[in-house]
């Protein structure tokens, strides 16, 4: 099965990191990504620019509205994702628990819908 691991974190915490701890976080992600590539679980993954850069698009009654900001204001923001291959939810949970942000934010695990 494929799972999308959505990484939610409080952006203000990220913004307030000093250079040294920022380097440690980047290092931790690099190691994590290498590990799940080596284990064959990795399908894809990216970090996202902060929600300040987000734009939301809606069409209502044929009318298109473009607004500044994310879909919803939340205490923690979507900051990145991994797409992984895992045998089942338990394996996906283990993979999610390995993401550095699990210690400070929250990882949402979502199975990818299979069309058959």
């Amino acid at each position, binding site marked *: 099965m494929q799972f999308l691991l959505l990484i939610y974190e409080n952006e203000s915490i990220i913004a307030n990191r000093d250079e040294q701890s920022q380097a440690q976080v980047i290092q931790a992600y690099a190691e994590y990504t290498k590990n799940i590539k080596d284990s064959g679980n990795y399908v894809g993954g990216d970090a996202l620019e902060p929600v300040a850069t987000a734009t939301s698009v809606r069409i209502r009654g044929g009318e298109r509205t473009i607004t500044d900001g994310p879909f919803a204001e939340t205490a923690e923001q979507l900051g990145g994702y991994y797409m992984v291959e895992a045998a089942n939810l*338990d394996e996906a949970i283990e993979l999610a628990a390995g993401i550095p942000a699990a210690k400070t934010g929250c990882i949402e695990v979502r199975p990818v819908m299979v069309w058959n």
Partner: protein
Amino acid sequence: MRLTQRDLQLAEDAAAEAYALAIQRWPTEGVPARPGAWLTTVARNRILDRHRRERTARDKAPAVAQLAELSAQERSERDDPESAPAYPDERLALIFTCCHPALGTEAQVALTLRTLGGLSTVEIARAFLVPDATMAQRLVRAKKKIQRAGIPYAVPTPEQLPERLRGVLRVVYLIFNEGYRATSGDALLRRELCGEAIRLAAVTRRLLPDTPEVVGLWALLRLHHARRDTRVDAAGDLVLLEDQDRTRWHHGEIAEAAAALEAAMRLRAPGPYQLQAAIAALHATARAPEDTDWPQIVGLYTLLMRLEPSPIVRLNRAAAIAMARGPHFGLDAGLRELDAIEADGSLTRYHLLHAARADLLRRKGVLDGAAKAYARALELVSNAAERRYLERRLRALEN
């Protein structure tokens, strides 16, 4: 649900194959001792073979089909719950699937009762005082989540086992408490819930032998349940432990649970269920209320506080301290503990804090203080049986 259709077809094919094999073999090899179980095994193996052949990386876990199959089989075994399980590993896997933390607590409880306890949806709905449709929907949603989220149908890895086992034990404990609580509702059904919880604990105990906390939970439930005939009087009112007719306790069950608990505690891996069971055992094995080993109960509550610090445990400990140190010093020590708990603030709206204070003051002879505390408890109590009990106490004081 697309997969159900497919799995149903698979199940029908497998059953047909099993019957074909039976017709071929039974005349020459003889009819097996449990023909039904034999057919289920063959059909199940066919399904598993098929799944194994078909399984690709994208294949979904066949948990839902197996849930249905196993629950049918569970029901047929229900009459003889103490018999060796036909498929121990699968039943164990099923318990962990039903109690997976990715399911909500209510869903875990309902699913466990439905598939392992073999209760009908209507019975579960009545037990939890929700409409049938609500419970049916809860079960459907839970099964869908198992299928779609890829909740595995497997015993957790050794690393995950302790954490996941805690979840299973919690579900069993919740089921028992639902039955044990003296709320309104169908008394027979409530007793049946307690019975189901004990049966589930017994099954888990057989599947994971020598796991101290599993034995602890089983013993705890058995010890509580052994007093089932004396907890409520003919009018449906609560009877306090010290007022219960101890000759009507089920002493055989108590002895059995106490012995199992002792063996488990010798493995030296204490846990909250073992400690609570040990406390229950001291109560259950005392011949009379005044024979209760209160000092040891205080010690056990102190250990429990260390493992699971909670204001409720502290409250129980305070009551035990009052009893342990005798009528003179004990009551004051107990009251001092209650003051400390109240100062802590978390239980000020908990009726049993005030009921405990009322009880100690009453024993001490401070009647107006006791009456005030009973009145405060009455303001906060919600359970009807407990309310009647407190009202009785208050009236007795006023006379």
